[in-house]
């Protein structure tokens, strides 16, 4: 397929009156234009076992396939799998694989690839960020060239929902463990609809549709462009230098939504913002102090300047089946906050809350790249200062963030957001042994419920357990739950048939069309 952009008519400038026009008129030959989308930061590597950013997850979605994928209703549907049978006890699954699939280098896709990928992810020395996705699989057994048997640690009810991880080509790796520094990082080979053609000098990545894959009327070429300055992204879309923005900044919404050459696509993400306390620090180890601070924050006033969204009351967004709708959101109640602080032994002197002569001051830390975090922190500072609490804001880069928040735990309050995939598993965030539980939250009842939710095969039991988790975590206030933002992707009006996956974005890219 040859694609051409619908530029405005190339009518030569008629007169010699405008020097500017003459200087600007370096004509572009009418050539095929790929589908270009912008990322803030290009992936350092393209390797599904080491995905750490959404930019990397999106590229992996284009290049690699999993045994199962999502259909537009977000139900699991076979990808590389052809069919599967679950044993009556739910402990084994025999998966028949498609025989018509080849890797981008021409090698046939076989069951060995599936077994190898699971073994590689499970190998601790691989240091895969995705190892948790296969922790529930005890064994992957090769049955024949296109059949694999998976043995689970616990009975599973719908294992296909967890078999979305991407499969690697075994023939390109000598053995496990896999190294993230291996050559595969910049020569990725998948079975996905697009193959990587080049990593370019300007950090862009060019991918081309695999011949024979999908509808030939689809996008022939996809180019990931690194546009690190967010100020330019919306402009480049308007100027037809890009075909898509993955996420529109709230400040650009007004300009884009009224533009005739741009279409906005709202999509739901399983992500929510929060202000997390350092529960090992005095006085934030006291629930009444945390509740008081939560009651001093006007969440709506923090949200209004940065966009629209729903205020969340706990660790599940309102659209989640695990959200407990009986739980009220945190309300702005200054008088209740004053009472709680007084109960906790604080007194208000010269418009500042103090205890034992020490003023109540919060070191509020946020990640530098978190969009709109500066507006939120500055408004929060203003709100709390007005209420008699000092705020010391700090914005950190990635390395400082990991060191300060995760390793040294040097903060009082952290502004951040969590994004979840379809499993919405908050175990790591709120279980006392969770790997992402940086606040230091520990509640034995929550631990038990989270463990129950992970092991049960009964969806109703899981739902009940997690709704209770939602309530308990809200009541303990390890964090002030803020909001889930409405997300919009922006596309050039030349792109049609767009349906966006809320997490992986490109899952249904084969249906997209460009004029």
């Amino acid at each position: 397929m040859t694609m051409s952009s619908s530029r405005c008519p190339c009518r030569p400038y008629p007169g010699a009156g405008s020097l500017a026009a003459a200087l600007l008129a370096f004509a572009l030959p009418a050539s095929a234009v790929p589908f270009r989308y912008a990322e803030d930061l290009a992936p350092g590597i393209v390797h599904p076992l080491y995905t750490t950013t959404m930019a990397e997850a999106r590229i992996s979605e284009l290049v690699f396939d999993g045994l199962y994928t999502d259909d537009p209703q977000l139900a699991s549907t076979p990808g590389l799998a052809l069919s599967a049978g679950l044993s009556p006890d739910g402990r084994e699954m025999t998966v028949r694989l498609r025989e018509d699939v080849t890797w981008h280098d021409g090698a046939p896709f076989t069951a060995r690839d599936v077994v190898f990928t699971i073994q590689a992810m499970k190998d601790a020395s691989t240091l895969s960020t995705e190892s948790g996705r296969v922790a529930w699989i005890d064994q992957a057994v090769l049955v024949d060239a296109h059949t694999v048997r998976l043995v689970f640690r616990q009975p599973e009810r719908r294992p296909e929902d967890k078999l979305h991880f991407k499969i690697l080509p075994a023939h390109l790796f000598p053995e496990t463990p896999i190294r993230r520094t291996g050559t595969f990082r910049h020569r990725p080979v998948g079975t996905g609809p697009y193959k990587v053609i080049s990593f370019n000098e300007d950090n862009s990545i060019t991918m081309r549709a695999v011949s024979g894959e999908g509808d030939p009327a689809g996008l022939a070429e996809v180019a990931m462009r690194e546009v690190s300055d967010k100020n330019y992204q919306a402009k480049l879309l308007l100027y037809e230098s890009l075909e898509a923005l993955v996420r529109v900044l709230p400040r650009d919404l007004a300009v884009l939504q009224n533009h005739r050459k741009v279409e906005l696509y709202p999509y739901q993400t399983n992500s929510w913002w929060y202000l997390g306390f350092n529960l090992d620090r005095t006085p934030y180890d006291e629930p009444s102090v945390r509740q008081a601070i939560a009651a001093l924050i006007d969440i709506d006033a923090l949200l209004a300047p940065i966009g629209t969204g729903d205020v969340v009351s706990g660790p599940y967004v309102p659209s989640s089946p695990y959200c407990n709708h009986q739980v009220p959101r945190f309300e702005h109640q200054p008088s209740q906050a004053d009472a709680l602080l007084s109960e906790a032994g604080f007194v208000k002197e010269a418009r500042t809350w103090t205890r034992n002569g020490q003023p109540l001051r919060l070191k509020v830390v946020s990640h530098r790249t978190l969009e709109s975090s500066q507006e939120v922190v500055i408004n929060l500072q203003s709100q709390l200062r007005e209420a008699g609490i000092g705020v010391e804001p700090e914005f950190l880069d990635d390395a400082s963030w990991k060191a300060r928040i995760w390793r040294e735990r040097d903060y009082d309050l952290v502004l951040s957001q969590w994004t979840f995939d379809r499993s919405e598993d908050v175990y790591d965030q709120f279980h006392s042994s969770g790997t992402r539980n940086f606040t230091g939250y520990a509640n034995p009842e929550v631990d038990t419920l989270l463990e129950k939710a992970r092991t049960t095969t009964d969806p109703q039991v899981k739902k009940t357990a997690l709704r209770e988790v939602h309530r308990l975590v809200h009541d303990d206030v390890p964090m002030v739950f803020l909001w889930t933002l409405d997300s919009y992707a922006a596309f050039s009006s030349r792109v049609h048939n767009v349906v966006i996956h809320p997490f992986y974005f490109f899952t249904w890219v084969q249906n997209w069309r460009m004029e």
Partner: protein
Amino acid sequence: MTLAAASLERRPPRTNARSLLVALGRLVSAFLLTLAGAILAMQMLLHLAPGDPVDLVPGGEQVRSVLEAEWGLDTPLVARWGRYLARAATGDLGTSLTWRPGAPVAGLVLPATARSLGLALPAVGLALVLGTLLAWATAGRPSRRRRMVQVLSIAPVFLLAFVTVNVLNEAAWILLERGLIARPSWFALPDTESGVKTVLAIVVLAVGSGSLAEVHAAVEDEIVRIRNAPFVDAARARGAPLAPHVLRSLVPPLVTLTANRTAFFVGGLVVIEKILLLNGAGAMLWQACIARDAPLAMGLALVAAAVVCAARLLGDIVRLSVDPRLREPRP
């Protein structure tokens, strides 16, 4: 007084092979010491910054000791520095840890440096030519033009680039929308790779952040000084043309100025490459520091120091070749 000039001026009246070797030895030693110092400075900066490369590896905390041993982060800073120098002396700059994991640093740094030199060298040349021409026009005259140069040049590089990009884009877009022009090949900045973007980077680098004003002011002072020098008076009395005398006398100060400004231009590359999305050594250094990628950052520091030293060395050689006074022994 630059190092090479000082070394050569200290030689005995009768030049011999030994003294030349000593002078060359001093130059090479100073060159190597500067490189070693630049690497140490970069290493210390990364060491003092919060966080380390292990923090940027997903799940790195669980295997911190393994990665620290593998990457040599478990030894004291000085030992790491010594080991890096020993390896660098053999041409091995190591591999990138976090930014492009596993990629050889030399393979990343050298093409990026070539791209950056393609901006910095023309920018230096343009600043000199423009500064000299403007100085020639303004020397000894009322200062309004001088102030105009200063006002234009005082704008920081990032602001000048940002404004220029937006003005060019908007102008082109208006003309495009009205069908007055075909879509320019460079449109829209800074996304599209084109000669216009490169030229824009060179011009902004040459003019912005006071570069042009400084060159202009320095050259103008020199021109005024030279025009009032006795040998120019003598030439004037003989009726000989003055320009060749003045221009020849301008070469040494221009060369010194160029050598001194090189470090400044190398620094400016970080800003201009980030803004115009040019993937040179400056933008790479920024990314390497953000990613705490010590081998990559040190490789870039090494090359940047080498470029600055080479510029100074070249400056000294040119000055010695054009100014006979520097070749004469001191009394």
